[in-house]
């Protein structure tokens, strides 16, 4: 049984039909990437999975349990966490307080300290800035914070929405290194990226989304070789 199963979901913004029957499966311990142009519906897909949007049609199953009607905050307790597009840090809270919020769903104070150590090891920069109000961090630091915060919830499935957006090349590299590292510790990752080249280099499998529909799915390897993908998303002509 797949860890996450998205069955033919249709999601709307009022009368805008954003997702027109998207189906995705993610197996445990995988990195799966969703690529697609602007407005293809990548973010909408992630938001629907994470419970921020409700599909009007279709179901979502997480570890065999139907979750398409579960509100977002309860999904966190089930093990799904999202790093939202644009980072969504709490700008007026300090770095530490942001991380504490990440651990909101974790009842145990002891594991909190361990978890904190773990993410500080992953992002030493954040430890330096522990007391800084996070709104004044630079873009890259904010991205680290958002990722670290999500890890504080010990997710089993991590949804990441464009973690490399607006980052300097050197940081893009390190973000993807981190993603691989997180995945190695046993976290399943569903990754949305514009930077398809890099995304496909770390992912096991991928889906291509176009105007709210899945047009292609394959292993990352094959997708990278796909002519259409190369032309439309990798900028290779």
């Amino acid at each position, binding site marked *: 049984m797949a860890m996450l199963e998205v069955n033919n979901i249709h999601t*709307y*913004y*009022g009368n*805008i039909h954003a997702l027109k029957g998207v189906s995705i499966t993610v197996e445990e311990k995988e990195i799966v990437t969703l690529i697609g142009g602007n407005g293809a519906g990548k973010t909408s897909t992630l938001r629907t999975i994470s419970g921020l949007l*409700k599909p009007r049609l279709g179901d979502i199953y997480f570890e065999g349990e139907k979750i398409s009607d579960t509100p977002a905050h309860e999904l966190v307790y089930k093990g799904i966490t999202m790093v939202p597009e644009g980072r969504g840090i709490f700008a007026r809270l300090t770095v530490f307080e942001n991380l504490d919020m990440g651990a909101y769903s974790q009842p145990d104070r002891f594991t909190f300290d361990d978890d904190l150590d773990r993410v500080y090891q992953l992002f030493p920069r954040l430890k330096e800035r522990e007391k800084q109000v996070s709104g004044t961090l630079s873009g890259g630091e904010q991205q680290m914070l958002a990722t670290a915060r999500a890890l504080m919830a010990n997710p089993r499935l991590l949804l990441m929405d464009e973690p490399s957006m607006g980052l300097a090349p050197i940081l893009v590299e390190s973000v993807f290194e981190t993603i691989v590292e997180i995945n190695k510790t046993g976290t399943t990752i569903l990754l949305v990226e514009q930077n398809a080249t890099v995304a496909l280099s770390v992912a096991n499998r991928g889906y291509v989304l176009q105007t709210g529909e899945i047009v292609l799915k394959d292993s990352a390897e094959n997708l990278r070789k796909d002519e259409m993908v190369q032309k439309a998303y990798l900028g290779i002509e």
Partner: protein
Amino acid sequence: MKDLIKQGLRLGSIFGVVIIFLILFGLTSTLSDILGEFVNLESRTRTGNPGGLMILFALLSLWAGSSASASDRSNWKSALVSGVSVSLIIGLFVAAFILLVGFLDSADVEMRDYLAQLDHLSVQFLLYGRSLIAGVLITFGIFLIFGILGALLAYWYEAKQAGEVIQKQVLVLKEKALDSKLAKQYKENPRSKWIGYGLLGLVVFITPQFLGKYWNYAMGTVGIYVLMGLGLNIVVGLAGLLDLGYVAFFAIGAYTAGLLTAPAPLPLQIGFWPVLIFSIVMAAFAGILLGIPVLRMRGDYLAIVTLGFGEIIRVLIRSDMLAPYVGGPQGIRDIAGPSLFGIAFSGKAYLYLIIIAILLIILFTNYLQNSKVGRAWMAMREDETVAQAMGINTLYYKLMAFATGAAFAGLGGALFAARNQYTGPADHTLMVSINVLSLLIVGGMGSIPGVIVGAFVLKGLPEILRELDLYRLLVFGGLLVFMMIIRPEGIWPAPRRRMELHEGELDVLPPEESLVGKEG
């Protein structure tokens, strides 16, 4: 099944509590009188009509029963279950309450010292003039029988028709029409537009002929609030500046007109027309004067400062300090009304004067709205920082919005004072600001017809609600909340606002809110 019962219990307790509150408010007496009169039942007690009360309870339980069965009307059994559970609970709630007050009453407890509507007479009324046990049992019986009846009737009605699907389709079509409506705005056929306007104008000009004195007066008040609404629409609706002290400019207009035309306290007695202009200028000037120090503040800071300004003006005009110059709490009497060629405007003629003023203001508002000024205001409302980066001198445009809004209010104030031939501090309370703001939003912000409809609702409705007497403001407050919940975009919204409020509302948690639009 369990869900049905649970839902029934929930709904039943809501209805039960509401009915108990109706009794506590004494609304049961009023409503029973109205109902009793409606079916010609003779009133038997001073506090209400017992027969009417039975009808009231019966109607309420019908309603409760039918809405309880709404969740599942697939078969008559489930309707019955919902009906029974809901009516049992309501019956228990209300009967227990009446039993309690009946008991207290028979123990000679003076309830009305604490609860104004409960005394021996009203308890007798609640018991239909019968004994405690009989009265309570009747009440319980009514709720039980009619609650179940309501549920079954609803099931029966639904079984007969299956029109739901069609309804949904209509909804979708309506939404689709929305976008194109705005698109049409630029290309609309001017001829048909003018014909429409012409017809409307004709109606507007004929109606006063058929209104009595009272409605002419009431409509005049509505008209003056339309003027103010149009002014505040510029400040709040277009420029996005929340002004809670709008009454200040209304007061300045009214007092300027009053002081310059009345014999006392200042013996000036200048004629109406020049003073009207002067009132507008004074109000606009006050708008600028207030604007200079405060317009750099954002959002709610501006709101509280303007609220303060309104209060300052009100406190000042009733203060001892200024009493010798502005009349103090007694206000100004014998304000001169306008006259033209020796004929004084009064009654109908005055209403026409107000209508002409409204039409002029609508014209100007339209011009402004569709010019670079209007766009600058809107841009400021949406994102002030970026608006400034577009080369818009935001302070200048804010001042202009403030001054224009103030000028309209000043016009309203002058017309108001001259019509009543009296003005005093009690005419310029915070409630005026609140009413104008509310009419704007109830009507539909940013839309001129909305302002007019809003003024009718806000100032006309309380006049209509006079029937309800003591409960006028109670019902008014409740309706305001109800209105916002069922139709937040207002009765007649601008297409722009309508789409703002309806797009994305269905499935999404809200993004961060801003004052008038969605983005910060």
